[in-house]
């Protein structure tokens, strides 16, 4: 991994954010929402509205507004919410923290289940265990989060009364209650990912187990389990890093739905509120932060992969 490659990957993140910022800015420009009207209300006088527009730079050419916005972001200022009048940045980052906790727990839970499932399916290929895993994964990828979430709430909260239906408790406030509140959301977000990742692990491992070097290891007299542990697993699991990183995009989408259903004040819920209220600065900030999260996760995954897989030589 050359410094040149790392530099290039970092430049790509900035390019990504530039493109995303253009897209959100364009979308929010076309949105039929007048910021000045939203802040002052329908009954404001024309003079007052004009004055505010002047002050907010809404009368400037579009490219200038974009430039101002971008410069603001570079300086850490994401703008002021039209809905609450508060700065958007701190609110969004605080919400992001809660979402990341949810995402991290989901990924951990997913990996704990998906990797063994995939390995079992690959080793027992064509047998009952494989078919079962296959069935689970077909059903899993076919259930949208809102369905699993609603059914899970019905089952575990309404009927069994094991877990609270909705709400969020910070970890620092009451650890037990926080975990209880996070259990269902984590479970719901993980289902599709488990289905997808276990399938990928299975097919990667099957490919690796058919590789010539696995055959040579077997013919050196190594036992099945030491070939699996020493030779096959590492190579089969490496690509999982990339797959999981790419799935983070899907996960962030799922987070939006799950936060909405379980009333978790994360960035997804903030975004839905912002979209419904047409709170332009909040939408812009939220989308940009989500895209940045995705890009950074994928960058880190690429770095990790390159560090672990000595074969890859980037230039």
């Amino acid at each position, binding site marked *: 991994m050359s410094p*040149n490659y790392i*530099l*290039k990957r970092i*430049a790509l993140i900035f390019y990504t954010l530039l493109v995303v910022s253009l897209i959100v800015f364009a979308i929010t420009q076309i949105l039929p929402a007048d910021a000045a009207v939203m802040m002052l209300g329908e009954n404001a006088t024309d003079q007052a509205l004009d004055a505010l527009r002047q002050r907010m730079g809404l009368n400037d050419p579009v490219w200038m507004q974009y430039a101002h916005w971008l410069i603001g972001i570079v300086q850490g200022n994401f703008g002021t919410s039209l809905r609450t009048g508060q700065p958007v940045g701190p609110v969004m980052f605080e919400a992001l923290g809660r979402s990341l906790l949810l995402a991290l727990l989901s990924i951990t839970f997913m990996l704990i289940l998906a990797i063994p499932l995939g390995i079992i399916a690959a080793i027992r290929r064509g047998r009952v265990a494989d078919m079962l895993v296959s069935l689970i994964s077909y059903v899993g990828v076919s259930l949208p989060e809102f369905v699993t979430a609603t059914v899970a709430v019905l089952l575990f909260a309404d009927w069994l009364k094991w877990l609270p239906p909705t709400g969020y408790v910070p970890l620092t406030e009451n650890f037990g209650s926080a975990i209880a509140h996070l259990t269902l959301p984590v479970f719901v977000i993980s289902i599709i990912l488990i289905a997808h990742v276990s399938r990928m692990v299975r097919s990667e491992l099957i490919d690796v187990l058919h*590789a*010539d*070097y*696995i*055959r*040579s*290891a*077997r*013919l*050196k*007299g*190594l*036992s099945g389990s030491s070939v699996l542990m*020493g*030779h096959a697993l*590492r*190579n089969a699991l*490496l690509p999982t890093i990339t797959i999981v990183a790419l799935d983070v995009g899907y996960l962030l989408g799922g987070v939006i739905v799950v936060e909405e259903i379980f009333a978790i004040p994360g960035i997804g819920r903030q975004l839905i509120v912002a979209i419904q209220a047409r709170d332009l600065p909040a939408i812009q900030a939220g989308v940009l932060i989500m895209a940045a999260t995705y890009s950074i996760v994928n960058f880190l995954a690429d770095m990790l992969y390159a560090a672990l*897989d*000595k*074969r890859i030589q980037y*230039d």
Partner: protein
Amino acid sequence: MTETTKTPVLQIDNYSLDYRTATGAFHALRNVSLDITPGEILGLVGESGSGKTSLAWSIMRYLPGNAREVGGAIRLGGEDLAKKSAAEIGAIRGKRISMVFQDPSTSLNPTLSVGRQLSEVLMRHRGLTRKQAWAEGEEMLARVGLKTPAQMMARMPHEASGGEKQRVVIATAFACNPECIIFDEPTTALDVITSRQILNLFVELQAETGVASLYISHDLALVSRTAKRVAVIRRGEVVEQGEVSAIFHDPQNDYTRQLIAAVPNPAIRLVESRPDATAAPLVKVENVSVHYGRKPFFAALTGRAHERVVGNRAVSLSVQPGEILGIVGESGSGKSTLAKAMTGLNPFEGKIWFDGKSISGVSDMDTGYRKDVQIIFQHPDASLNPRHRIGEILSRPLKLYGGEGSGSQAQKIGDLLEQVSLPRSHADRYPHQLSGGEKQRVAIARAFASKPKLVICDEITSALDVSVQASIVRLLLELQRVHDTAYLFITHDLNLVRQIAHRIAVMYHGELVEIARAEDISSPDRADYTRRLIEAVPIPAGTTAAAN
């Protein structure tokens, strides 16, 4: 000392193996009987699908789930391997019997160091600690002729060359002083000169250790030079076995005779014609260079120097009308790059003169040029569109260049098929319904549909079995005789090219080393590289080097 005085190490006794398939049992091996005594090399020669590799898997007890052993026994030191438990087999593999594989780049785990992969067999079978095994591994690598064994141990497989990797694999196979080693085409994936070095290493180690060796290969010439006894296998049956000299001089079986005849022998020229050396050349290639890749964006930005990959460096040569010009070289020597440049598949610098017309780029290659210059590729699987029927494939050149003569399109397609000895009914088939040799015949028919003046053959026989290769070569020479077509025959098979080419161009690292008449290629006046190449190529036993 003859083999009858020694007890065999490996004894295959009337062994039969079936594979269960959807269409019934497939007999992979039928009543195979072979013995290998200590210190002996038994060559097992067969074409693809002959069952030679199945036999290797049977010996190693590494059979797929649908395999059924229907009779006979395989004994190692008198013990029946089929009666061993999985754990016992695990203790035998790598210790008492080991194996060297065809392709060293796939038989080593790409993410584990060379040392780890070599030392694990020592730890497994000789109970050494990691440290002892590592030290012992270094010695092994020194023994197989690796110059810097300590560094090599720490390297990852991708950091070693193909020859180095195969030496590591050989060191692993010899690591526990096994009684028997199976070599499954150990040089096929390597370049000519490297494979000669590996072969020499094998002979040396074999003599030193006296291990019983089963040497599996499709290459009769090569086996005849290394093994003392040869068994010829065809469709699961050993049709003939005996001393090399006996088999070569007095083959009893028809198939063996056919196989021996099919092996390219540089002493036997297959072409009698002589191109008119005084005529104006059909093609003149002048200082043609090809570069691959572009400057990476960031290198351009940071002003860093970036070396573009060179495919060809100022290559100049010419072909007379009706001449067969052979081009030989190792992989990566730039021989295919030249073919691609001449057919407009690679941009190039320099100039090509064809039939008096100058061509300096793709835009100069008009329909007339396309019609006159045809190319045939190495893998017929890849060069025939899998979704087109043979008839459709052959109709394209007729449409593009206007087929000559009267008759319907179907008539002409049938004629084209007949010209390459395929039944007319093949027009309705898809490529995947044909055998490899048949597919290559279709590709040849497509190239000859336009009655070209020059046909570029890019390694067209190297994916085929020896006997199929021989029939394809016969077909090409027949077509050449009838149409007086010139060939640019690109190959890595020196023996073959010496049989059929008028002149041979030798390429190395993108550069043209020299061009010589085929008769003079083995002369001591040749360039250093050419001489090394010629020396590296095994010539079939019982024949002398080219009559010269």
